[in-house]
Structure formats: structure tokens, C-alpha cells
């Protein structure tokens, strides 16, 4: 077993963007994001919350893995997308969680797993990985923001925070 510091970067994928002056239809955007989540067969919608927090519009959807994965480490476990704000000033948060992502150690042949669950990890199998799915969904959301915005999308209207 190769020993090195666990890589936290593999596991962490909270992603926040702040959007201004886009005139975005947040209701439609939210519905389109739900549809995008439903297109992934390994996920099922588990929870939706909509309402106001201190007068600020808020919508949040969580999808969880529908069945046991074939591998554990780094596999997509849940996704939460949250939208809060008004059409010209709002935030979007994308969280993708993975099992035992911080047990993944970078090695020359891909990933090695620290601890007793090496066989459960099965690195390299064709499973739905959180990092890959997060990247794909992030790009999908960008297109959906453009689609549902009344004004042109430009970099100066967007600020990104990555955890």
C-alpha cells in the first residue's frame, strides 16, 4: 500500500456562483435543473425545498443515488443544487458528495485506497464518479442559465467561489 497524504480535493465539490444583472427566470431555471438531474438514471430526487428566507427567494433540490454503487470511493452519493436571490442578483450552489473521497490517494496507476476497503473501491470501474458528474452538471447549468436569462451572459456578471 502506498502511503501519502489523503487528497481532499477529490472529495470536495461545493461550487457557488453569484450572478448579477442577468434578469434570470429563476423558476424556469430551477425546473430545468431538476430535469437535468432526472436524466441521470443513477439518481432520484429525494427532497425539494422552496420558499423565502428573510424575504429572499430560495429553492433547493437534492438527488441521491438510487442504488448501491459497484465501487465506493469517489462514487457519486448525492447532489444538491440551491438557488437563492432575485432575477438580477442571485446565487447558485452545486454540491456533489462522494463516498470516502478522502480515502483516495493519488498514485501512479490511478488511485489507491487507504484502509481496509480496497476491494470495495475498485478504482477504474465504470461507475458514476462525483467529480465527473459535478463537472458535467456545472457545464449544463451554465447553458441553462444562459437559456433562462433575459440579458446576455458575460464573465463580468458572474463571480465564482469554490470551496
Amino acid at each position, binding site marked *: 500500500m502506498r502511503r501519502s497524504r*489523503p487528497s*481532499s480535493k477529490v*472529495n*470536495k465539490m*461545493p461550487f*457557488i456562483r*453569484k450572478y448579477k444583472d442577468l434578469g434570470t427566470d429563476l423558476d424556469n431555471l430551477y425546473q430545468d435543473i431538476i430535469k437535468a438531474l432526472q436524466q441521470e438514471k443513477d439518481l432520484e430526487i*429525494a*427532497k425539494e*425545498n*422552496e*420558499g*423565502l*428566507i*428573510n*424575504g*429572499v427567494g*430560495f429553492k*433547493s433540490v*437534492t438527488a*441521491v*443515488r438510487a*442504488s*448501491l*454503487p*459497484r*465501487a*465506493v470511493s469517489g462514487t457519486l*452519493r*448525492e447532489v*444538491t443544487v*440551491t438557488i*437563492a*436571490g*432575485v432575477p438580477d*442578483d*442571485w*446565487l447558485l*450552489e452545486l*454540491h456533489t*458528495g462522494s*463516498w*470516502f*473521497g*478522502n*480515502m483516495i490517494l493519488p498514485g501512479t496507476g490511478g488511485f489507491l485506497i*487507504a*484502509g*481496509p*476497503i480496497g*476491494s*470495495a473501491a*475498485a478504482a477504474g470501474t465504470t461507475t458514476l464518479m462525483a467529480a465527473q458528474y459535478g463537472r458535467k452538471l456545472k457545464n449544463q447549468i451554465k447553458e441553462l442559465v444562459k437559456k433562462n436569462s433575459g440579458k446576455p451572459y458575460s464573465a463580468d456578471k458572474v463571480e465564482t*467561489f*469554490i*470551496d
Partner: protein
Amino acid sequence: MTLVRTYKHLGTDLKGLFEDIIKEITKEPQLNIVSEMRGEIKGVPMMSVTASRSKIPKILVGTLREVTVTITGVPDNYLIEMHVGEWLRSLVLPHTDPIFLVGPLTGLVSVGSSGLLAATYGRELKLKIKELVKKHSKSDYTDDKIETIID
């Protein structure tokens, strides 16, 4: 907040432990169990439970959003992962003011309101799991049998 612990040579009743963890999560009225999984992956037993916030919080930043606890392995060699998710954590910036938002989104913060904060809940659940591991283990719980990895 993600915490992984490896446990060795404890002879733990993992099914009993998992059921007690579910009971513990269910005690929190602001959480709903949304997913439970039990099975094997490549011959290794795995149990996982996810609970999500049941309704909109009074504040947003730092508030508990979901919790997942996963146990995988065998009684003398297993892992527990606890993930506690919160909203908009990366907007908590290291400035003089603990939270910095400009414009209409400021209302999301309400610093000082009594919300169910992820950090508080995570700490309590972590301590409870420790007690439950002791309860369900045949051997003494000692530091040399445990390794903690915190994300």
C-alpha cells in the same frame, strides 16, 4: 465537514450500530431520512443512510442541509464516514465580519439566529457515534484501534 474513521479489532456489531445511528438521526426533528442502503460491494458489506433537512431554514449560510453516515467493512476492520453538508459554506469569508454578502442576498445570513448549524450538529453526532461504537463493540475502545481522517 467529512470525517472518516477506521476501526480495527473491536468486534463491533455493525448492524446494531447502523440501526442505532439511524435512530439518532431520526431524533432530530429537522431531518428526514431520504435514503437507506444495505448490501455488499465486491464482497464488502456496506450500509449508508442519508437524511435531508425537512423544511426551509430560518437562515441559510452554515445551516445543516444533509447528513450521510456510511459503514463499510467487517466487525474487526471497518470504516465509518460521516458527511455533514451545509449551505453556502464557501461564502463565509475570513473578514472581520464573519459573513460578507452584498445586496438583497444579505437577508440569507442573519448572523446570530438560532438555526440548526451544520458544525454544531456534526460535532454532536460525531460524539454520539463514538458512544454507539463503544456500546456495540466486544473489545475495549482504545486509540490504537482507531485512525481518524478528516477532510
